């Protein structure tokens, strides 16, 4: 490990971060977040295309040969932090982390060539469908079946909690065959896929329930390859989500500090009271700690090495807790206003709590970590 290098963003990364932040402040102000979260689609296709064409965000970690820019996971982290801070409502985690992650690691050049350019260009919204009734992202719980007949695969079963499943053009589905659980690409326009949006607590991230009835599918990689591919993809997703969480937590802290410095009660800014000041200090400590973990974890996600599982579990546990704490304290510091619909603090709490439950709770991450550490 070469820690000192890991823990500071490079100058280029910081410039890139500023570009992304400026872009998001224009295309995803709070008013847009609120508009989009009330829509069925939940994102703005024009903005989605500009993300791809102006900044190349969807193709960030896609190799140049497939139309991307071949950047590392560290640059992806920079983007996700800013998206988390802005509560961007768009199918980015699903498309550019989950689906892209599967395609990059599936060992199937032909699938890569067929799908990645569309993702990079902003044409294709894609996602991964793994969890079923239990909601757990666990291969053991997969009951959806893939059956081959007349040279074509067809899927039957139900996937639940599919991120952006209601708008995805391409769904990568984990389905069971005789050789174990494999990965299958389903074109949602090709029929056989019923989609039902879920009503989510976090309105800024949409989820859906997908019913596959003899849905035509294409095998990605080898049969039964999910056991090899998905654990890595889920670790990467945990790191990506953690970057988003840190970005959100830091924004909550900034909101708290700004309010505490301005709001006067009992003849003083409330931030001069230790009850508020120390709350902010404690949140600062957690945000900085979370940031340190995320930067280290992004490094692990960028380089070959065997420390990714430990760092993903660490990041998943710590950043989930830190974000929920920062979002809850932000409401508290804002008082009745923080609790009101009109002010944005509640949107962050809902995002924070839902993010914690998305890929397994903080406690689940710790249980996994105990195993990895031999404790």
């Amino acid at each position: 490990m070469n820690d000192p290098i890991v823990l500071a963003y490079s100058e280029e990364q910081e410039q890139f971060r500023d570009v992304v932040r400026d872009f998001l402040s224009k295309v995803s102000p709070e008013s847009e977040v609120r508009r989009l979260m009330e829509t069925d689609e939940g994102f703005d296709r024009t903005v989605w295309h500009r993300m791809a064409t102006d900044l190349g965000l969807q193709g960030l970690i896609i190799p140049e040969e497939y139309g991307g820019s071949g950047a590392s996971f560290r640059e992806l982290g920079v983007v996700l932090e800013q998206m988390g801070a802005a509560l961007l409502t768009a199918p980015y985690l699903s498309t550019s982390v989950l689906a892209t992650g599967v395609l990059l690691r599936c060992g199937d050049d032909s699938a890569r060539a067929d799908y990645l350019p569309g993702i990079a260009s902003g044409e294709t919204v894609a996602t991964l469908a793994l969890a079923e009734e239990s909601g757990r992202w666990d291969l053991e719980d997969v009951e959806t079946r893939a059956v081959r007949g007349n040279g074509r695969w067809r899927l039957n079963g139900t996937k639940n909690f599919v991120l952006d499943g209601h708008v995805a053009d391409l769904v990568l589905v984990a389905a069971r065959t005789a050789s174990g659980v494999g990965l299958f690409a389903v074109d949602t326009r090709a029929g056989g896929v019923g989609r039902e949006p879920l009503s989510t607590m976090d309105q800024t991230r949409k989820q859906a329930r997908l019913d596959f009835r003899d849905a035509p599918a294409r095998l990605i990689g080898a049969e039964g390859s999910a056991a090899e591919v998905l654990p890595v993809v889920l670790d990467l997703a945990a790191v990506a989500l953690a970057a988003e969480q840190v970005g959100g937590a830091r924004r909550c802290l900034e909101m708290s500090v700004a309010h505490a410095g301005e709001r006067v009660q009992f003849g003083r800014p409330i931030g001069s009271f230790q009850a508020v000041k120390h709350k902010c200090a404690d949140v600062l400590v957690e945000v900085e700690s979370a940031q340190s973990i995320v930067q280290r974890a992004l490094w692990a996600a960028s380089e070959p090495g065997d420390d990714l599982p430990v760092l993903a579990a660490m990041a998943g546990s710590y950043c989930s807790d830190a974000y929920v704490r920062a979002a809850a304290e932000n409401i508290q510091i804002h008082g009745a206003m923080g609790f009101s619909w009109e002010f944005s603090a509640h949107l962050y709490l809902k995002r924070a709590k839902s993010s914690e439950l998305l890929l397994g709770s903080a406690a689940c991450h710790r249980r996994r970590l105990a195993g990895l550490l031999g404790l």
Partner: protein
Amino acid sequence: MTGLLRRLLTATPPASTDETVFLERQFDLGLAWVQFPVGSGGLGASRSLQAVVRRVLTQAGAPTQDEYLRNALGVGMIAPALVEHGHREQWNRWLRPLFTGAEIWCQLFSEPGAGSDIAALTTRAVREGGEWVVNGQKIWTTAAHRARRGLLLARTDPQAPRHRGLTAFVVDMGAPGVEVRPLRQIDGSAHLNEVFFTDLRVPDADRIGGEGEGWQVALTILMNERVSIGGGVADEGGGAIAEAIELWHRTAVRDDVMRDRLVRLWIQAESARLLNLRAAHNYDTNVPGPEGSIAKLVYAQLKQQVYELCLDLKGPRGMLFGSYNMHHPEDHVPDDFEIQRRYLFARGDSIGGGSSEVMRNILGERVLGLPKEPRPAG
């Protein structure tokens, strides 16, 4: 008093009597608030006897405290302040319809610039002959949209020091010059309101207490509020842990770490319940003391932690929700996602009715006798 209770229950048997009729009769017999003066819903008796009345009537199936919840603020907080600071003519006009629920009351204290800090209010009341002209804005007002009357705190002397320039009034919420706008909260519901006053005219006869004595009126209400919220949330708090336990039994994937959290919270809920019984004992026998502040602080934290655990127990299903459509609480239709709603709503328990920070100040200063924050220089 036993005789009066018997007369009430015999003349108007709860089972066969219209609720309003029963409550009117209860008021007329002086059994509404036994510690109030005769003729004003009371018997001039010891406050401790109210607990006896409550117990007897509840056992007899009379409208319980739950029924009063429609007008909880009026019955539990405003009425005692009217009796302590108002005069008989006012009692005669207001207390009976207040008790029966014919007239709902709200409390008009908080302002955008003054949430926890009531001494900083800026809503003005200016005297013009036998009337006062009120201009300003109130916020975070419970039940204002269905209230007939409100207890208003307004500044009548801008020259006086912060606490001293305030006066209390009763305002007619239907009068011209009063506009109520709903405020949505975290779960989309509109429990609270903004209230705007534009040249509202209030007769001087509706002033409560003397000019400049509004702070004392507010204190009476706030002390009663904490006891009331303490008592009210006691049941809710008990409800929360019961929900968690019920959910635990329905949860398939459980582990020892969650179990330990649940048991810890169960102990806290039980200790809070026992603590609250002590507080209720004091409330029944004495003037409201600071125990309500402990209860409020404890229950706010407890409910937040319990619903946090509930969502964790639900796992991915905790991400689901019903509708965020705006609605008044009385129109709420429960769905399958009430626990999520309560999780969100519990964040308000440490804010409304005095934030947890203010509660800790009260405990530190009033119970433990620690010194107050010094006033800033200049």
